[in-house]
């Protein structure tokens, strides 16, 4: 089980590294799908199959598809890739990498100070999650619904006004 965890964790870390290093947006998003899938494997290993399914369906499915739609709608092309390569000089990585490494070293050293404790002994399935979600956390579910409504209204408001003058030019772009 530990072997599976280490393989999945390695895949997740390497694909995430490729996401933040890649200059082509579509390729980076495809690597992000692999990263999310590896995290889903880890969720399954820990005994949380419901969350693993949600990770694949919503993160690797819906959210990445939304990103891909926007990247393809903006139609950036090879010019943007060249510009990304020009922006990503090696010396730009020095400062953020040092800061991130300091943060990581501090938290990991704090975490590994005591003896390791076991986790994921028993599986917590969808039945228990659903019972708690619509029992104790019912108010939070309604608040989440309000948040989604706010997101919907905000997104539609931001897209609304420019649609009228842009509609002619948009149809010309289609083959």
């Amino acid at each position: 089980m530990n072997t599976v965890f280490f393989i999945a964790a390695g895949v997740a870390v390497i694909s995430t590294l490729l996401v933040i290093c890649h200059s082509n947006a579509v390729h980076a998003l495809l690597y992000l799908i692999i990263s999310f899938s590896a995290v889903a494997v880890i969720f399954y290993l820990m005994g949380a199959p419901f969350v693993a399914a949600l990770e694949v369906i919503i993160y690797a499915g819906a959210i990445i598809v939304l990103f891909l739609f926007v990247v393809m709608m903006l139609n950036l092309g090879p010019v943007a890739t060249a510009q990304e390569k020009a922006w990503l000089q090696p010396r730009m990585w020095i400062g953020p990498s040092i800061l991130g490494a300091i943060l990581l070293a501090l938290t990991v050293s704090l975490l590994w100070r005591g003896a390791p404790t076991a986790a994921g002994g028993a599986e917590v399935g969808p039945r228990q999650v659903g019972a708690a979600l619509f029992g104790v956390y019912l108010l939070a579910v309604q608040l989440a619904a309000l948040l989604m409504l706010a997101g919907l209204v905000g997104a539609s408001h931001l897209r609304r006004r420019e649609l009228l003058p842009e509609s002619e030019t948009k149809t010309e772009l289609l083959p």
Partner: protein
Amino acid sequence: MTTLPMEYGLTLAMVLFALGLVGVLVRRNLIFMLVSVEIMLNAAGLAFVTAGMRWGQPDGQIMFLFILTMAAAEVAVGLAIIVRLFRQENTIDADATSKMRG
């Protein structure tokens, strides 16, 4: 089912979070910055689920569901803002937003 130490999951969550943080700091492309924020949110969700499984309770998974909801709403609004900025400025450079007024 053998048990997995909690520290493994939390360490992976911290590594992913640090990678997302470096991504936000390094990239100037707004789409990549949003992607890096997604990586950080996913790492936070991984930490929540790991801590929930430590006690064998469903609460961590429920917090992951709320993080998922928040990430979806954030991506919808963020991508709408990016599309609007691209229509106005014809770029998705993060520095272009410094010219905004009001």
